[in-house]
């Protein structure tokens, strides 16, 4: 009996980490998704050990003792792994530190989009009535807001910062997650076991978090993993248009820098290509992981 009792919902405190891990339901069965996860792990490690991996301060202007700028070095030249930018900064170090902002933006945006969307979807779907009506009208409005222009306008009147992208995503992109989760909740809400929980005295909060939320988590993760790519791409676009955060090194600002310094004309591929590749890799990883989640959610797609 006691060991059976351990599985009761009230006795789960000890296994919180485990439950979260199980809640993630990582799509480990799909080789492509596993590949995506490995890319994530690689970039996370890079971000964590950026201080060790980088050879220079990524924003430091490097110059020789007789005031010559150490600019436009080719890879390997003077010991710069990927060379230097036109303004004398170390490209390799920028690339390494760029993974920090990319993951920071990507993950926080993903958390925001998934969290807000999930909460909205849960509340709207479960409680219905005017709460639902208000939230869904808000979603309609969010659907009417063109996203990239919104970020541009936001960046213009806030200080340029990578957080603008996250903020804009939190303000606008919860809509997709919110709607999908709401409709999912609408169908879950009518399940007999939800009613059963109510009959046996469970509060709304308890029902939502214990009976409904776990079933929609993979959906949240699906949208979260898509949001990672969106956030990184958006940050790159915003930086490219000149509304980025000049104090933060990101792959987007690197591309902007390379572009403004005409890396294409000077064929400085070592400068222009790596940040682009990193963006593509991380975003593709997000797609692969989200496809993994899709196959968990909608197994019919799989043969």
């Amino acid at each position: 009996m006691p060991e059976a009792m351990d599985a009761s919902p009230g006795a789960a405190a000890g296994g919180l980490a485990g439950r979260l891990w199980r809640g993630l339901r990582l799509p480990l069965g799909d080789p492509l998704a596993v590949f995506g996860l490995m890319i994530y792990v690689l970039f996370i490690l890079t971000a964590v050990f950026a201080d060790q991996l980088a050879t220079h301060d990524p924003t430091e202007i490097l110059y020789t003792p007789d005031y010559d700028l150490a600019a436009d070095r080719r890879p390997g030249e003077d010991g710069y792994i990927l060379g230097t930018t036109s303004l004398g900064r170390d490209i390799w170090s920028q690339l390494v530190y760029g993974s920090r902002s990319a993951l920071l933006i990507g993950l926080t945006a993903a958390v925001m989009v998934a969290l807000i969307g999930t909460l909205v979807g849960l509340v709207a779907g479960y409680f219905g009535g005017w709460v639902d009506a208000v939230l869904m009208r808000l979603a309609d409005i969010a659907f009417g807001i063109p996203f990239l222009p919104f970020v541009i306008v936001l960046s213009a009147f806030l200080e340029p910062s990578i957080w603008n992208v996250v903020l804009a995503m939190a303000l606008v992109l919860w809509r997709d997650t919110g709607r999908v989760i709401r409709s999912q909740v609408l169908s879950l809400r009518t399940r007999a076991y939800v009613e059963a929980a109510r009959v046996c005295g469970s509060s709304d909060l308890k029902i939502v978090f214990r009976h409904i939320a776990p079933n929609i988590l993979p959906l949240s993760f699906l949208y979260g993993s898509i949001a990672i790519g969106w956030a990184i791409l958006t940050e790159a676009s915003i930086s490219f248009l000149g509304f980025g955060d000049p104090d933060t090194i990101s792959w987007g600002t690197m591309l902007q820098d390379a572009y403004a310094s005409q890396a294409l004309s000077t064929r400085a591929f070592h400068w222009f290509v790596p940040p682009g590749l990193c963006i593509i890799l991380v975003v593709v990883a997000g797609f692969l992981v989200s496809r993994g989640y899709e196959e968990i959610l909608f197994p019919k797609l799989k043969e």
Partner: protein
Amino acid sequence: MSGMRQIAGRLAQLVFVLWAVATILFLMFRLMPGNPLAAYIDPTFTEEQQRILMARFGLDRPLWEQYLIYLANLLRGDLGDSFFYRQPVFDRIMELLPNTLVLTFSSLIIAYGFGIVVGAWLAWARGGLAERIVIPVVLTTRAMPEFWLGMVLLAIFSFWLGWFPAGGTRPPGAEYDSLLALYASRDFLSHLALPVLTLAIYSQGLPLLLMRSNMLEVMREDFVTMARIKGLPRWRVVVLHAARNALLPVATSFAIAVGYQIQGNVVVETVFSWPGLGRELVNAVSASDYPLAQGAFLMIAAVVVVMNLIADLLYGILDPRVSHA
């Protein structure tokens, strides 16, 4: 009857959303730090001159009054005068909107044409080597920053090979009788090629993947099996039966894609010096020309909202189950 009521309801929603977006924009721009006229007022202006200007743009009145004036003007289609150009915002936007729409629609038509055919083919060749190669490639095209792709194409096809012009809609000094004459000209097509290619490469992934998964689903359905039992050749089954049925949801996604594309155009228009609405928005924001930024944003939002509406209605028409829900 209920269809009409549904359309009326959706129209009311459209108006509501546009009103909300306009209000949000109003608040954002009015609460913006810094002097809204910083870009307009030359530092040598006297305080008196500044005061007159503030009055001219109604900026000396209380916020709620400004808001009411703003809404009343919007209803009359008056978006105000651009600070930067000192011309009516509406006229300017109307000059640029056609360019943006041409770019958006032509790239999406190409993307959908390509995506649908390749998607169907992939479903047909399911499980093969093609799938294992094409799908990661498609995902990669979705993962590329559009401006990056645009720059690479520009470098290759314009700067290095010299096949296409690098920007704008027409050769220097060329004149046309009308916008239509311009759009029908060969010159225009050659200017259109690179930006359209960029956008199309980016956009084809959605219809392709959608078509593929719809096809896979439809191909499992009974009538396809029946058709095959009847001895029709496999490709005919795919084309005549499965593809036709799988196409409907793809078609509805087109309208939504227009809405998404038009907001993403901002970047590509900048790379290709395309005189469109998105680039104008970027310019306006950089120049703190908020009547213009506001107008451009609203126009883009209007396209998005209308396209969402069309997608909804299309969805209702194509899938009758929805209208009862």
